């Protein structure tokens, strides 16, 4: 059974949105957005984080309803009030975060949503699974437990699930962040195959390169509005540079300069850190030798990782999510015990020291989970700025809290780091992601820091805050701090780092100097050991 009817030039768009408006408290996420999504076409929605792409997708997927506006499927006005209705209309969505049940098998995940009064019919499900897998050209064991598959494979299962009910429209929300370069290539092939079969594909991204590479049509979103569109006919004949310029013009206006945020977007992936500042003759400040952690069920352990960092050097750790980066960051910071190996800071062994003790020696760790781990949401900005120093002078005297000094300290940091908050006593969960990140950066960038580990420092941030965060990282390295940056974005790593290692299945496979061709070598390293 084919996925959908062949394309007919004069027909209605598979899905169309007209004047969609959606408010959230304090912000207009979608401001009168009108777009057409045609069959047999890959339509890219391009915009930075916070531009409103995810909200629009949420509406199409039935997760929320618009405040006003019309949705049309094949020309007919419809209401999508729940995920069930979205699926019934043939709209399949693959979200950024894996929405699968880890403790069930692949096939069981796909069978979810079957009529509850019946016995699970395995044979029928298996047949459909094979059918769709073949169309996509992927091979996955239907009886494998989902939690054991690599993220790339899980994403493929998600795509199969999205197409399960008929496949009129396939929505992919930032799908490449979980993939190796080879995986991205594969995804591209899958998308083209589906497109040629008549599926309407909506591809959401914040990266210019991807928009150019995958899109048949590009719509640019900024601050909740569609600021411009590059239709199919024009796009086909433009070079990458021309597309880049056009998009910059659409986003920032005709007089956009090459500096600031516009410049950052335009030249993304082009900047490379110059290696000159690092003095190679100095002893490494931070040394990691054959460090391993205990394997816990459901996650990747660290296996014999070895690297070192000199003062002022920026060391990058690349790799797709789920290859042990989190465990590595935690074992270095002291949140996880060392099973074997040695970690030394300035010659002193850290193995037996806890988080607080390592902090005293100059170790700093900025987590990727800002609200889940980095801060206490219900407590004030002031408290959060000092949460790692509770009990220490000068803010505590003999165990008693000196609230006046705490608040003053907070006001000071808020001013110097441009943290946007109603007051230093606002519960930190009320701040935007970018401002919470500023708090984290302010907290960890103290004068006694000697080693700082950044875990996904610009994740989910808009252009402006991304730029600020990266500047701060470079500044900290310039002052002699041994810096480690863990990231899934190769562009970011080549911009910031002197040397970059690749994490794969818990091992650090090869360290690459950040010179010409580094991306290629990194891509190979990521793929070579690829189960991720």
């Amino acid at each position, binding site marked *: 059974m084919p996925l959908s009817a062949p394309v007919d030039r004069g027909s209605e768009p598979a899905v169309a949105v007209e004047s969609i408006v959606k408010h959230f408290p304090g912000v207009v996420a979608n401001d009168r957005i009108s777009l057409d999504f045609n069959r047999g076409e890959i339509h890219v929605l391009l915009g930075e984080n916070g531009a409103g792409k995810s909200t629009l997708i*949420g509406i199409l*997927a039935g*997760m*929320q309803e618009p405040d006003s506006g019309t949705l049309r499927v094949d020309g007919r006005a419809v209401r999508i009030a*729940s*995920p*069930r*209705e*979205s*699926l*019934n209309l043939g709209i399949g*969505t693959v*979200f950024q*975060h894996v*929405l*699968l*049940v*880890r*403790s*069930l098998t692949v096939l*069981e*995940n796909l*069978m*979810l*949503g*079957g*009529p*509850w*009064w*019946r*016995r*699970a019919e395995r044979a029928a499900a298996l047949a459909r699974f094979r059918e769709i897998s073949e169309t996509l050209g992927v091979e996955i064991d239907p009886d494998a437990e989902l939690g054991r598959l690599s993220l790339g494979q899980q994403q493929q299962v998600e795509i199969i*699930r999205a197409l399960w009910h008929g496949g009129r429209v396939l929505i992919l929300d930032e799908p490449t962040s979980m993939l190796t370069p080879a995986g991205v290539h594969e995804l591209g092939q899958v998308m083209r195959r589906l497109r040629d079969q008549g599926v309407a594909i909506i591809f959401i991204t914040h990266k210019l390169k991807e928009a150019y590479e995958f899109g048949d049509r590009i719509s640019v979103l900024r601050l909740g509005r569609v600021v411009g569109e590059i239709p199919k006919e024009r796009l086909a004949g433009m070079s990458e540079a021309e597309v880049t310029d056009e998009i910059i013009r659409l986003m920032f206006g005709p007089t956009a300069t090459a500096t600031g945020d516009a410049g950052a977007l335009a030249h993304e992936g082009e900047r490379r850190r110059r290696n000159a500042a690092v003095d190679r003759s100095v002893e490494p400040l931070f040394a990691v030798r054959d460090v391993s952690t205990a394997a816990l069920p459901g996650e990747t352990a660290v296996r014999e990782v070895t690297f070192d960092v000199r003062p002022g050097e920026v060391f990058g750790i690349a790799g797709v999510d789920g290859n042990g980066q989190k465990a590595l960051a935690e074992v270095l910071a002291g949140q996880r015990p060392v099973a074997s190996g040695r970690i030394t800071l300035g010659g002193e062994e850290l193995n037996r020291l806890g988080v607080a003790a390592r902090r005293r020696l100059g170790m700093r760790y900025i987590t990727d989970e800002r609200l889940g781990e980095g801060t206490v949401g219900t407590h004030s900005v002031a408290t959060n700025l000092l949460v790692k120093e509770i009990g220490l002078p000068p803010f505590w005297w003999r165990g008693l809290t000196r609230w006046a000094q705490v608040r003053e300290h907070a006001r000071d940091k808020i001013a110097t780091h441009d943290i946007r908050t109603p007051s230093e006593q606002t519960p930190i969960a009320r701040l935007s992601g970018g401002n919470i990140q500023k708090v984290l950066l302010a907290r960890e960038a103290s004068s006694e820091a000697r080693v700082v580990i950044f875990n996904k420092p610009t994740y989910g941030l808009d252009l402006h805050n991304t730029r600020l965060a990266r500047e701060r990282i470079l500044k900290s390295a310039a002052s002699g701090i041994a810096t480690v940056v863990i990231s899934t974005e190769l562009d970011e790593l080549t911009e910031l780092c002197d040397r970059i290692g690749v994490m794969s299945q818990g091992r650090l496979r090869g360290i690459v100097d950040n010179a010409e061709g580094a991306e290629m070598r990194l891509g190979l390293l990521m793929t070579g050991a690829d189960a991720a």
Partner: protein
Amino acid sequence: MGGIFTVDFTTALLFGAVTAGIPLLLAGLGEQISEKTGVLNIGIEGMMLVGAYLGFVAAYYSGSFWLGYIGGAAGGALVALLMVILCVWLGMNQIVIGIALTLGAEGLTALLHHFQFSRTYPRLGEVPTLSLPLLGDLPVLGRSFFDHNPLVYLSVALVFVLSWVFRKTYIGLNLQAAGDNPAALDATGVSVYITRGGAVLATGVLAGMGGAYLANVGAGLFVPFMTNGAGFIGIVLAMLARGNPLWVLLGAFLFGTSLALTTALQVGGLNIPTDVVQMLPFFMVIVVLIIFARHSYLPPALGQPYVRGER
């Protein structure tokens, strides 16, 4: 010493173990269904108690034990309904509401009992039993295991039915998904609210029937606060059983044995004070928890209400 190893003692112990274990079994199975979907159902003690009361009232006024079980199921379901509305649908804190429901059930049933029965303390008639053919004639084992009120056989059968449902039906998959990753379930178009709501109602029905059995068969009357922690023991059973109903069966029987020890010992001629023996089941629970602490499994989304669209 002669008392303990006689046929009489053994029969009394095993028979008592089954009788005491059934309420625990039903509570444990019910709690297991709830916990699978991610709801920590602390109110189960209240569900059992209301089930015990309504079950007793139904059996007393109708003369039928079967109607008693229906009454019990209704009572448990009523309390469960409150939990569904407040916790599953509105998303209020499951622990606070659970405590409230248990305390409220205790108070309410005690109040009602005071006004209805405290002067007369009526008792039910003889418990109808069904002796299984052939099996019921075995020595010792026959009288112990195969000569019980029919709910016993149904409850044990339920263990296997539930096992099958968990592993082989769409319901089972949905239940597991609701507890593992409710957003994933929602994305497939299945309502998390209905799944969890159904689970909690099922818990109420089972716990209520367990309470009715406790009152009608176990004791023959209703006494305020008579469940005395049975619901909480059910929670322990569910926690340790790691999603497998068979472990609940084993655990219920074990704890039932410790509960039945009092009467059995009296039959055996030993005179250990009642209070010491009453400590036994809770003592065993603690010991089991200490030994098996590392092996208890709880689904990742336990205790967290699901709100669509929120991360």
